[in-house]
């Protein structure tokens, strides 16, 4: 492998801050979207449940 060591890999030839600053934020933002999507689906299912119980008790 071209990096030799983990340290070299993390250093990115002196550009570690810029490279990893890009990748980490990208990963965090995508993880946040996945979390938000899961939350939205659960909320939508809860809304359906509420509509069902409201409709049947009426």
């Amino acid at each position, binding site marked *: *492998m*071209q*990096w030799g060591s983990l340290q070299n*890999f993390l250093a*990115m*030839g*002196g*550009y570690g*801050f*810029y*490279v990893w*600053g*890009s*990748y980490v*934020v*990208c990963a965090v*933002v*995508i993880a946040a*979207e*996945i979390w*938000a*999507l899961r939350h*939205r*689906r659960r*909320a*939508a*299912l809860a*809304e*359906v*449940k509420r*509509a*069902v119980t409201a*409709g049947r008790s009426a």
Partner: protein
Amino acid sequence: MSSVTTSPGFSLFRYAAPNVFYPVAGKMVPFFAVLAAVLTVIGLYIGFFMAPTDAQQGESYRIIYIHVPSAWMAMFLYVTMAFWAGVGLVFNTRLSSMMAQAIAPTGALMAFISLWTGALWGRPTWGTYWAWDARLTSTLILLFLYLGFIALQAAIDEQRRADKAGAVLALVGVVNVPIIYFSVKWWNTLHQGASVKPGSSAMAETMLTGMLVMVFAFWMYAIAAVLVRLRAIILERERRAQWVLDARDQGKL
């Protein structure tokens, strides 16, 4: 609603009915999600372990593997969003407007990633995180168009009106996409010209391969995310429809 689903014979419009598309989308999500994950692993492996160091930029160029895919997807998703919003506006098809609404947040996210990674790439390359350059400014406008679309839809209570207003905004904003794309040609910008044009590339082959794999990875991710959001939106809007209640009783939501 039921007239669409019970009409006999073949029709592409059958899939335009939310109750038909809902389970289809559900089946497609895992396929695109797995593809996105696998392609990301392959693309990053090529990008970080096979592609060489850039002669001019050193290792900082490796930001390209997320910068270009997110920038391309931000533009592509915008056009797709405007297209579906326009179809919903003209033909009054419910699913089209829902599709536009489902695309907007993922598009905004892609625009944000391209701006963020661009700033972190710009600093070591040009000496600045930000410049009011044509490419950068038009991409920032793209982000604001997405956010404006989301805010406008959220601000209007009546769904039909919200969809129509959003569609008008989305369609007017389409003019910004060619401006972004050609900005590096039309103006003397800080941002470099296109490295990849149809039929030619100014990049080393492994770099280009890694980047293109990442483009597909982002694409597959965007499809998966949009479909999941679309399913949630269908439930939000149709929660009182009989098919939703029936599907729920059968445990098929």
